[in-house]
C-alpha cells in the first residue's frame, strides 16, 4: 500500500528517472542494536540507454555514497531539494552497462519529526516502512513500477523477533554477543521492502503458516490467535481465486501507538496498528483480509497508471477481502461488507462532495477514499455480477500472474477474453463518473390470463446509470424466485410472470451495486405495493442498524428500512410504518 499521493507529485520526475536506470537488486545490511541505525545498501543498477544520473528519495540518515568504489556526492534535486537527491555517476553509463551503487547510512532516524508513518526505532521496536519521502532507507523507484530482488540481513538484539524481505528467515545466527543475525530474501520482484523488529510474543497459526507478533493484554492475545488462524484460512481461498502466494510464511506484526494507520500489507507482511487487536477489534477480520489482499493487489500486481492505483489496489483488495471472507464465513458476511462500503460512500461523504474513482485528479480530492476505495470495491462486485463469477475470477487471476500488467485497460481486456463481455461502458458509468443510481420501486400483482400472476415492477431510477437490478421474490409457499430487470435512467416497467403473488420483494439483497432503493409506497419495505405487518417485521429485524460515524464500522445500515430517514433503524421507524398501515 504505497502512497499514491506521492505518485502524483513526482510523476514528472518518475518519467525522467525511469528512462535512465533500472535497479535490479538491492542487498541491505542493517544493524539495529544501537541507538543509531546502521544501514548498508548495495544497489545493482543497469543502464537503459545512456545514463548520467540516478534520482532517489533523499536519504534520511547521513549517507556516504560510492559507485563501484568511487566516492560520489548526492546533490539536492533542483526542483524538489527537500525530498529528492541526485546521484551523478562518475562516468556516464552506456546502454546495458551495470554499476553498483553503495549507500552507507548511519544515524538516529528522526522518525517522530519527519512524519508519523515513517518509522520507529527505539529500544523495544524498530519499524521501517516502504522507503519513501519520509524515510528513505534504501532505493525506491520514483513511483513507476521498478521492481528488484533483494536480500535483507539484520543484526538485532537477542530477544527481538525480526521480519524483513519476504517469508520466513533464510537463517538466524546467534552471534554469541547477545545479538542475532537474521537473513531474509525477497525472491519475488518487489518495489518495496519493510523491516520489523520487536521484543514481542510470537503466536503461530495451527498450520504454522502465519506468525503473529504482539505485545498486549489478554484481549490482544485472543485477537491475534483469531487473526493468525483467519489469515491461514484465507491463504488457500486467495490462492484458489487468484494465485498461490509465493512466500512460505506470512507475518502479522502489531505496531505500537504512533502509527495512525489500521494496517499495511506487503506480500505477506502485514503491519497492524495495536488498537486493531484491542479497542477497535471490529476491524480485525476485515483488516487482516484486506491487508492480506494487498499481497495480490499492490504487490504481485501493481497498478502501472498512477491515477488508477487507488481503484486497482485499494478497491480490488477490499473487493477481494469480502469475497474471501464470504467464502469462509458465509454470503451474509460478504453482503454486510459490500453494504458497509456502499453505504459509507453514499451517505458519509462530507458535504456530499464526490469524485469519480478514475478521475485523474482523484488524489487531490478530499473524498478520494470514499470513491476510490469504498465505491470502487463495490463496483468490482458489480462487475463480477455482470461478467459472471467464474469469468471475472479468471480475469483477475490473469492480472496477478508474473509479467502481467495491472491497469483498467488490461482488466477490460482480460474480462473480454474470459467472458466476451466488454466492460468499457460499465467502467465508464461507474468509475469515470460520480454518483450512483437512486431507485424508487414498487410492484403490483394481478391474476394472469394464463394462470398464476403477473407481477409488474415499476422502477424510477435517477442518475445517469443503466444497470441490471437483481430481484428476489419470495412466494407464499417459500419458493424464492430470482429475476433481473434492466433499469435505464428514468421510469421503467417490467412484467414478471410468477405462480403466485410475492410476499416479499427484495431489490439487490446481496448488495451487488452502489445504489439507494426506496419504496414508492411509504414504509412498504417489502416492495409488494402495500404496507402490512410484513413490513413491520422486516424493519424490526433490522432494529439497531445505524449509519456509522466511523469508517469501516458496519452499522448494519440499510437505508430502505430507515423509514423516517433519521439514520437509525429503531422503534420510531416501526411507529411510522404502523401509522402507514392504518
Amino acid at each position, binding site marked *: 500500500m504505497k502512497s499514491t499521493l506521492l505518485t502524483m507529485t513526482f510523476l514528472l520526475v518518475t518519467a525522467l528517472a525511469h528512462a535512465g536506470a533500472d535497479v535490479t537488486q538491492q542487498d541491505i545490511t542493517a544493524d539495529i542494536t544501537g541507538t543509531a541505525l546502521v544501514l548498508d545498501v548495495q544497489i545493482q543498477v543497469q543502464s537503459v540507454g545512456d545514463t548520467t544520473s540516478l534520482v532517489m528519495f533523499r536519504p534520511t540518515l547521513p549517507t556516504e555514497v560510492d559507485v563501484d568504489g568511487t566516492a560520489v556526492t548526492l546533490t539536492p534535486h533542483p526542483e524538489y531539494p527537500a525530498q529528492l537527491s541526485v546521484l551523478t555517476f562518475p562516468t556516464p553509463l552506456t546502454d546495458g552497462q551495470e554499476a553498483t551503487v553503495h549507500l552507507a547510512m548511519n544515524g538516529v532516524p528522526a522518525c517522530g519529526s519527519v512524519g508519523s508513518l515513517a518509522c520507529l526505532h527505539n529500544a523495544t521496536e524498530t519499524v521501517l516502512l516502504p522507503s519513501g519521502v519520509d524515510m528513505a532507507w534504501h532505493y525506491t523507484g520514483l513511483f513507476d513500477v521498478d521492481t528488484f530482488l533483494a536480500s535483507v540481513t539484520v543484526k538485532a538484539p537477542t530477544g527481538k523477533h525480526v521480519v524483513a524481505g519476504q517469508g520466513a528467515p533464510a537463517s538466524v545466527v546467534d552471534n554469541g554477543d547477545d545479538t542475532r543475525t537474521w537473513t531474509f530474501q525477497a525472491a519475488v520482484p518487489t518495489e518495496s521492502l519493510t523491516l520489523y523488529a520487536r521484543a514481542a510474543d510470537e503466536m503461530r497459526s495451527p498450520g504454522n503458516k502465519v506468525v503473529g507478533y504482539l505485545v498486549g493484554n489478554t484481549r490482544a492475545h485472543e485477537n491475534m490467535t483469531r487473526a493468525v488462524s483467519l489469515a491461514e484460512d484465507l491463504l488457500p481461498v486467495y490462492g484458489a481465486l487468484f494465485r498461490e502466494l509465493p512466500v512460505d510464511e506470512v507475518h502479522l506484526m502489531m505496531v505500537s501507538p504512533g502509527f495512525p494507520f489500521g494496517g499495511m500489507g506487503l506480500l505477506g507482511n502485514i503491519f497492524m496498528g495495536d488498537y486493531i487487536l484491542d479497542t477497535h477489534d471490529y476491524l480485525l477480520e476485515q483488516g487482516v483480509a484486506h491487508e492480506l489482499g494487498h499481497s495480490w493487489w499492490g504487490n504481485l500486481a501493481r497498478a502501472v497508471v498512477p491515477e488508477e492505483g487507488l481503484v486497482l489496489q485499494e478497491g480490488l483488495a477490499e473487493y477481494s477481502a469480502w469475497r474471501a471472507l464470504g467464502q469462509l464465513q458465509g454470503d451474509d458476511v460478504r453482503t454486510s461488507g459490500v453494504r458497509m462500503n456502499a453505504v459509507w460512500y453514499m451517505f458519509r461523504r462530507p458535504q456530499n462532495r464526490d469524485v469519480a474513482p478514475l478521475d485523474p485528479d482523484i488524489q487531490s480530492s478530499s473524498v478520494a477514499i470514499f470513491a476510490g476505495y469504498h465505491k470502487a470495491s463495490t463496483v468490482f462486485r458489480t462487475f463480477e455480477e455482470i461478467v459472471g463469477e467464474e469469468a471475472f475470477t479468471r480475469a483477475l487471476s490473469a492480472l496477478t500472474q508474473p509479467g502481467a500488467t495491472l491497469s483498467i485497460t488490461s482488466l477490460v481486456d482480460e474480462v473480454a477474453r474470459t467472458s466476451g463481455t466488454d466492460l468499457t461502458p460499465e467502467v465508464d458509468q461507474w468509475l469515470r463518473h460520480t454518483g450512483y443510481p437512486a431507485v424508487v420501486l414498487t410492484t403490483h400483482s394481478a391474476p394472469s390470463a394464463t394462470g398464476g400472476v403477473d407481477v409488474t415492477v415499476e422502477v424510477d431510477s435517477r442518475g445517469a446509470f443503466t444497470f441490471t437490478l437483481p430481484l428476489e421474490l419470495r412466494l407464499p409457499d417459500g419458493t424464492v424466485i430470482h429475476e433481473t430487470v434492466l433499469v435505464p435512467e428514468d421510469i421503467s416497467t417490467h412484467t414478471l410472470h410468477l405462480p403466485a403473488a410475492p410476499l416479499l420483494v427484495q431489490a439487490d439483497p446481496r448488495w451487488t451495486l452502489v445504489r439507494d432503493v426506496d419504496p414508492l409506497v411509504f414504509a412498504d419495505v417489502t416492495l409488494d405495493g402495500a404496507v402490512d405487518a410484513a413490513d413491520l417485521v422486516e424493519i424490526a*429485524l433490522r432494529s439497531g442498524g445505524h449509519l456509522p460515524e466511523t469508517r469501516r464500522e458496519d452499522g448494519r445500515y440499510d437505508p430502505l428500512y430507515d423509514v423516517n430517514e433519521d439514520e437509525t433503524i429503531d422503534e420510531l421507524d416501526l411507529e411510522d410504518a404502523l401509522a402507514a*398501515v392504518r
Partner: protein
Amino acid sequence: MSTPFSRVPALGLLLLAACAPTASNPPANSPTEPTPHVVTDPAVTGAALRVEPVIDGSSVTVRLVAQQLGHVFGLSYHLRYDATRLELEAPSADAQPGVLGPDAFMVLRPGAGDVALGGTRRDPRQGEAEIADGTTLATLRFRVLQARSARLDVERVMVRRADGAFTTVGVQGALLEEVRP
C-alpha cells in the same frame, strides 16, 4: 364379526372421512330449512394458521388459531373474505391477544374483503416468543350480509424467526354454508 370383505369398504370410508373437509355443524336432514354450518378445509400438518369460525345466528365469530408455530419473532397474514356477503364488525381492542409479548407492535388493518393481521417484536435482541399449539392469534366478528355460502381464507402468511429465517406455514381456511343475515 366382520368378514374380510366387509372390512375393506369400512376402512376405505374411514380414510375418506379423515381426508374430507369436516363439518363442525352437520347439516340437518330437513330439505326446507338448511342449517348454517361450517366446512373447514382439510387439516394440514406442521406449522399452520387455521380459521375456526363459529356461526351464531347472523353473526360469525372467527378465531385465527396457531398450529405448531413454535418460536416466532414476527408474523404477517391476511384474512380474506367476501365483502358482499360478510361485514367485519369493528375489532375489539383485544382482538389480538399479546402473543408476541406486551410491547410488540401489532397490526390489524381492516379492508374491503381483507384484514391485515400480525405483529412483530421490536428487536431481534429481544429474542422470540413461543406460541403454543392452539393459541388464538386473533378473534374477529362478522355480520352476515347475504344468505349464501362464504369463504374465509388465510393468505399471504409470513412467519419469521429472530435471525430472519422463514418458517414454512400451511393454512386451513373454512367455508360458511347456509348462513343468513
